[in-house]
Structure formats: C-alpha cells, structure tokens
C-alpha cells in the first residue's frame, strides 16, 4: 500500500540547486519512491504530474511544494521529516534559522549587506528575471558585480555596464560562469596556483579551458575576470572587457593578459585590439571563430611568450577505428567549447547545425533531430530556464546522448566534461554508464576540462571515461579534431 503526500508551503523559498539536493537525498532513503521538493513553477508542476504525484492546486511560483510517494506510512513520515531536516539545515547555513537570535537576521537585499561590508564583490546567481534588479542594487551600493545568472536581456546588460562605467565599477557577466579574484575561484572554478597570467573572458568555459591548460603547463593565474559572453558583440561593444583590461594592466602581479571570447563582432574585436595596444601589459587574444587560433593554440602562444615550454597536453585516446559514414554529433555543457568544436568541424565539413550556430542559417531548435552535423549547447539560456546548469545536472544531455547513440546515422559523439568547484562531483560516472549502454562500435570522444588540484581528480575522471571506451583529451580542440578524423562526410 503506497502512501502519498503533497503540500504547498506558501512563501517558503530555496534556490533550485539546494532543493534538487534535498529531493535527491530524501529519494535515496529506503522505502521512498518519488520525491519532489521544488518551487511551484510551471516546469516543476509539470514534473510533478509526470512523476504521477498529486498536483496541489493554488500554488504560485513563490510557493514551495513538497511531494512524496513512499511504500508505506512509516517511510513517508521518515521522508517528510528528512525533508524538514534538510531544509532547516539550509536555513542554518544562511543564518536565517529559527534557532538564531531574531536580532541577527541575515540581510535580505544586496544593498543592506553592502552597508555592513563596504565595497565588495557581489556574486548574483538568482533566477535571470530577477538578476538585473539585484545587480543594479550592487552597483548603486558601490560594489563590483559578477552575474552568474543567465536569461538577462542585452538591453539590461548594456544598462548595467553603462551604470558601472559611470561609477568606475566592473560588471562581470551576465552569464559569467567563472572568475578568479584575490586567489579565490568563483562560480564554476578550479583550484589554481597564483601566477603571472591575467584573463579577461567573454566566455566561461573558454576561460576554464585556457586556465586548465595553463595549470597543466605549471603556470598560475593572477586573476580571471569574466565579462559575459556577449561583451564583444556589436551591441555591448566590449564595455566590460575594457574595464577588466584596465584593472589587470594596473595589477603589478599580472605579466601577460589573455583575452578570451566566443565569436566576437569583428569591429569590436578590432577596437579592443587597438585598446590593448595602449596598455603596458602584453595582451594575447583567443577569439573563437573563423581561422583564428583555437583556445589551445592561443594558450601555447601565450606560454611561448612567457618563455615556458609547451607540454604535450594529457590525453588518453583509445585505438581509433576506421572513419565512419554519418554525422558528427556534439553534446556540450560549455558554450565556448561547443563554439570551438563547431569552428573546427565547420572548416572540415561545412554546415554544423546548432542552437548556438556559427551562421544564422544553421540554427535549429535544440529539441529537433536533424539529418546533418549537429552540436548542442545544453548550457544555453533556453535549456537552463527553470533548471540547473548541465555542469551540475546532466539529465537533459544524457537523454539526448541515448537518443543520438541509438541513431545509426550518428558517426561519432563528441562531449565535454567540465570539472572544478561548483560542478558535478562525478560526471564521468554518469557518462560512462551512458557509453556502456550505447552501441559498442560508436566512437565517443570526450574533452575533460579540469585543473590538477580540482576536487573531482581529473586523471580519475579521465580513467573512468577511458575504461568505458571513450577517447579522452584535455584539449577541447584536440578532441574535436580527433572526432572529425573519425567521420567520413556524408552528402
């Protein structure tokens, strides 16, 4: 006899990552069938329905739903009490627990927090539609701001960067996935040694690739300032890139600056190069697209400029079989890694269809299957609305992996795995399981982006993937070329 429970807790709030962890930990209890602890968004109500759990009526997106199905009443009661424990542990973490003194409530707005701290860096990772309001509050409080949130409009981005310029502050983002400031990694970040290279990145995973390759070469970082993937677009005009370059140029520990970007607007890229020429610190560019050097090549160039020997980038390729007829399918968590792979593949094969295409006429809906070369960025705004980033939750990507693996027109599958703080603690195990379920003859190529001291243990992750039959690289560009070599282009 199963027991079910569904309730609405009006006005209770926790971020989606925390709630997912709560749901997961409670679902792992004995006798518990299905658990959803989530905000009552349309997406989550849909999930609830899909799980066959009762959908409570009258819940708004600001209400928390707790729904559990268990084998019996005892398991149900244990599950509900575990939910409460997990939620109150989280409140304790933020200092908002009922046990604390009422007079010591944590601040509810960035502005009030900044009244106590003075000038600070504010890391905003609230849902995108709320990010602009928090970021403006940060700037008006005299704080620099890193906006991890995506789904921020370009108009809002420009308004924020103009407001920052007026106040002599820096806006990192929106959609700024990674940064290193004062030796501390923020967002999705890696365990890196201090060193002479400063990074300005209009790309999260692009910066992660460069930083991890530098780490592999034994070179540390002074700071890495993300500026948002659109900063070098014509609309935004490189506002934050210039501000970040100025800050790094004035930093005595920075000997060389690397500017990394998703495919930029040509005019803006040219303008930034001219601006870089006026600085006292040498600037190296890694701008994805066309026949410009890829991230690995740009990193190698920077190493030579620093007088550091370029190592062989660690890789664990298996025995490459004969090239296969069919299509190259890339399933990425990192947008810039996807861009880089598409650039390499497009030079080889022509059109590569994508939800973030290199050319407008290669655009497809990421849910559509196509009879062509295809690469999907699962970290794109549209696929992260209302759900965690694929570096944290690979569900969507693994579902697509299974579908593409079952398609006989798929010649090779290309993936990235991004490690570091904030990322999934064992992503390789999930992908390895998917590879084992796929046809044995299907080649799977994986780039693993991580630093040597990252919590996941990069060589351990590489081994798990290699043992499952994948060809594993630490250079995304090398992985992409290896994958392309395994494809006989189909007409």
């Amino acid at each position: 006899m199963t027991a079910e429970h569904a309730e609405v807790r009006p006005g209770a709030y926790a971020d989606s990552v925390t709630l997912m962890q709560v749901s997961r930990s409670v679902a792992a209890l004995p006798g518990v069938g299905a658990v959803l602890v989530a905000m009552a968004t349309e997406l989550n109500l849909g999930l609830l329905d899909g799980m066959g759990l009762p959908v409570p009526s009258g819940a708004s997106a600001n209400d928390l739903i707790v729904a559990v199905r268990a084998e019996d009443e005892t398991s149900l009661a244990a599950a509900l009490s575990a939910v409460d424990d997990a939620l109150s542990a989280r409140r304790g973490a933020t200092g908002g627990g009922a046990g604390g003194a009422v007079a010591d409530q944590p601040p509810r707005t960035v502005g009030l927090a900044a009244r106590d701290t003075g000038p600070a860096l504010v890391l905003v990772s609230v849902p995108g539609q709320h990010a602009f309001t928090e970021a403006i509050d940060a700037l008006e409080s005299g704080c620099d701001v890193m906006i991890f949130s995506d789904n921020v409009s370009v108009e809002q981005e420009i308004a924020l960067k103009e407001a920052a310029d007026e106040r002599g502050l820096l806006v990192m983002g929106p959609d700024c996935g990674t940064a290193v400031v004062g030796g501390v990694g923020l967002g999705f970040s890696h365990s890196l040694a201090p060193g002479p290279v400063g990074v300005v990145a209009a790309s999260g995973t692009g910066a992660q690739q460069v930083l991890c390759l530098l780490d592999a070469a034994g070179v540390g970082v002074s700071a890495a300032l993300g500026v948002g993937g659109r900063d070098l677009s014509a609309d935004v005009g490189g506002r934050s890139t210039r501000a970040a370059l100025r800050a790094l140029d004035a930093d005595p520990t920075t000997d060389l600056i690397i500017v990394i970007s998703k495919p930029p607007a040509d005019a803006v890229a040219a303008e930034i190069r001219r601006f870089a020429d006026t600085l006292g610190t040498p600037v190296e560019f890694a701008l994805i697209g066309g026949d410009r050097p890829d991230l690995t090549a740009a990193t190698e160039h920077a190493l030579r400029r620093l007088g550091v020997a370029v190592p062989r980038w660690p890789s664990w390729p298996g025995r490459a079989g004969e090239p296969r007829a069919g299509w190259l399918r890339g399933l990425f968590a990192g947008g810039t890694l996807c861009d880089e792979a598409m650039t390499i593949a497009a030079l080889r094969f022509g059109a590569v269809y994508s939800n973030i295409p290199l050319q407008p006429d290669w655009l497809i809906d990421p849910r559509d299957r196509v009879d062509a070369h295809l690469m999907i960025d699962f970290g794109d705004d549209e696929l992260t609305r209302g759900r965690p980033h694929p570096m944290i939750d690979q569900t969507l990507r693994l579902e697509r992996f299974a579908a593409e693996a079952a398609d006989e027109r798929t010649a090779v599958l290309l993936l990235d795995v991004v490690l570091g703080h904030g990322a999934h603690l064992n992503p390789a195990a999930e992908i390895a399981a998917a590879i084992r379920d796929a046809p044995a003859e299907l080649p799977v190529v994986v780039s693993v982006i991580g630093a040597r001291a990252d919590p996941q243990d990069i060589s351990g992750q590489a081994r798990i993937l290699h043992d499952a039959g994948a060809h594993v690289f630490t250079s995304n560009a090398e992985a992409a070329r290896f994958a392309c070599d395994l494809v006989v282009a189909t007409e």
Partner: protein
Amino acid sequence: MTDLLRRDLTLITAGADLFAAAAESQATSVTRVDWAPPMPGTEADLAAVAGDRRRAAANAEAVRRVQACRAMLVDVLPAGEALGLEATQLLHAGPPIDWARASGPLRGAVMGAAVFEGVVDDPERASDLVVDGTLTLDPCHHHAAVGPMAGVVSRSMWMFVLEDPQTGRRAYCSLNEGLGKVLRYGAYSPEVIERLRWMSGTLGPVLQAAVRSHGPVDITAILAQMVQMGDEAHNRNRAGTLMLLRDLLPAMVTSGFSATDVSAAAAFIGGNDHFFLNLAMPACKLALDSARNIAGSTMVVAMARNGTDFGIQVSGTADLWFTGPAQVPEGLYLGSYGPEDANPDIGDSAITETIGLGGFAMAAAPAIVKFVGGTVADALANTRRMYEITLAEHAVFAVPVLDFRGTPLGIDVTKVVRTGILPQINTGMAGRVAGTGQVGAGLVTPPAEIFPAALHALAGRI
C-alpha cells in the same frame, strides 16, 4: 577604474548557496543575502524601475529634503482660519472615501463634528446631509493636514500650525483630545462634544497665546530628543509631551488667561501622554511633503487609512493614491473588548512610520514592547527589519540601543516589493461600531498589494 584587484576580496552572494559555500571552502568570508523572489508578477516592473536612470538621484534628493526640513510650531488657529474651512466642510483621515463605504468610527466622528459645528442637533441626521451633499468630506492629506484615527476636522476645531522656516511651507493637525471616549475614535456622546467645546474655547486660545509669546517651538528637535528618551512618537509620546509642556508652561502662565484656565490646560496636556502625537504627525507630514513630486523617486511620502482603505502616495507618482483593504490590527485590548470589536486600521498617524518613527523606531521604545511580541529582542528585530525597506538612516533621529544608528528613513516601494517585508505600524484600535471609542492598541501592516500597484505606476512613468 575598479579597485577590485587592489583590495582583499570581500564577497556578498545572492542566489545559489553552492557558490557561497565554495568560496568559504577557499577561506573567504562571505556575506550571504537571504534572497527570495519578489512579490509575484513584479519582475518586469522591478527591472524597469531599477533601470530608471533618474531613480538613484531622485531618491537621494527625496531623502535630503526630508532631513533638511525643520518643523517649527508657529501658531495655533481654528481650522476655519488655518485652512479656510466652511461649517459644512469636514476633513477626515486616509485616502478619499464614499460615505457608503465609510467605517463606523469615521461615521461616528463625522456625526459628532456635525453636532459640534451646530449643523445638526441629532447626530443621526448627519448621514443624510453627507448623502445629499450638504456636508462634504475631504482627506486631511489634500489640505496639508493630518488627523489621528478618524482624523475628522471641522471649522471650529483648533489646529497646530507648523512651518518650515526655509521654505515657508506649512502643515496642520488638530489638538489631541486624550484617550477613551473621544471623537477621533468615533465617539460622539455629549461628554465628547463638551470636551471639544472646552478645547476650542480655552485650550486652543491658551496655547495660541503661549506659542505667540514664546516664539516658534522646534518640534523636530523635540522629536530627536524624545526618540532617545523611550518614545517612538506614535504609540508612546510621553517624553515629547512633557518637553512641550516644559517649553510652553511659562508662557501659558503669563498669557493673561485665568489661573483656573491655565491650570486646566496644563493638567489636560500633562495628563494625556499622547498630546504630542498631534505635533509629531504634522512635523512628519511637513518633512515628507517636501519630498513629493520628484520624478523617478520611489519613496513613499504618505501612508494613511480611513478605516476602510489603506492608501499610500509615492513621490514619483504625484497625488495618486494606491489603496487596498485596511487590516485589523493585532494587539492588546482594553477591558472586555476583543478582536470582534475592533475596526480595521484607521488614521493618518502612519505618517510617523512613513518617516521612520513609530513601529520603525520600535527599538527606541522598550517600554511598549508588549505590542510587538513582548521582548526587547522583538523590538530590535522589528527596527532592524525596517532597514531592509528604507533608503537611508536618519541623521538626527538616533536609536541609543542600536549604538545611535539613525532610524530607518524613506520607505522604498521597490524594496518592499523585492523583500515582501511590509512596513510595521504601531496603532490605536477604534471600535467597529460608531460611538464606541478606543478598544485597544497594537500592530498592523498595509495590504501587500498596494506596493506592486505603486511600482507598476512608477514603471509606467519612465
């Protein structure tokens, strides 16, 4: 250029706790914002108003003007003289209201005022005269005035006249009648009318002579001192009342009125701990009116209730009222009265909270913590919470127990909507039935929906 790379990293996080924890694991101290989504459906308006380039400067100007205002008591006059009211013109508290929707206490006060002015003999007749238009009702706030509870003002009632010497602007408020069965709580029995006649015949003239002889009394200065003496200027005005009496008593004695009249006036003022409320309120009104009509400002300049509706006005939306149903306060009841006897929230006295006194300054008034849950810690938490929804901290009104931190100043519509924290108002409670009088005192908040409505109007004016 940013100093980000030139100072030690200080990190504030808003959003996923994961990132705060990750930074802490790298030995960085993190200030976590306990962020929660704003009131439902407000994202677009919030973003629009947040992006209004006039807003920051407009709010800074609003705060500056409020603090620059000095409220001086310069005269005491009958309302007919001060505001030019006719015998058939009555003012009331709160936003505008139709008679059909008027609450018991407001009706009771209108009936009493009509008797007091000699417009009717039978209080029950007043209703017909309002319905047929002989008697007109208009909010105090539309006449640079404020009135506690029902706030009914008629021509023959005397009013304090407060003036800001820098600008010459004025604000007005009637004289406080004391507690219990009084007009402002909707009572209109003969003893109520009798007291009003004495106030007009003796108290008003004595005070007028005293103020004119003494010269302007600095009400803003008394407010600043009383907040350090345990008053929050809404539900506790004891120190303020005594300071006023201290200032005016010598001039009352030499006013030429009989010793009996002066003695009665002094006893009346000294015996009514709330006498100063009717000076605190117009002082707040005068300061807040100076911040009206600043394009782009999201600061609330008035909160007022008429016993049916709770209304706010906002600097950036001119004279618009945003209204919703007034709530029944939670609190303590007199004698055998209980919640079923209480009328919904009424009065212009929330002007004290609008400037950051009253419920906002609860931490300054530990003697009345019974209203806020009973402990001093609750009072401290109450005031601390109000910093979340205000623009600044008052430069002159300081709370001793918070290390003389300024009181929370300038309610920001955007912050109320972002945090869902509603202004906390200390208030008296009137009986639901006309003629009852006061039944208790307690705490109340505005209806939440008026803040998104105000925000929407602000967004529409960008």
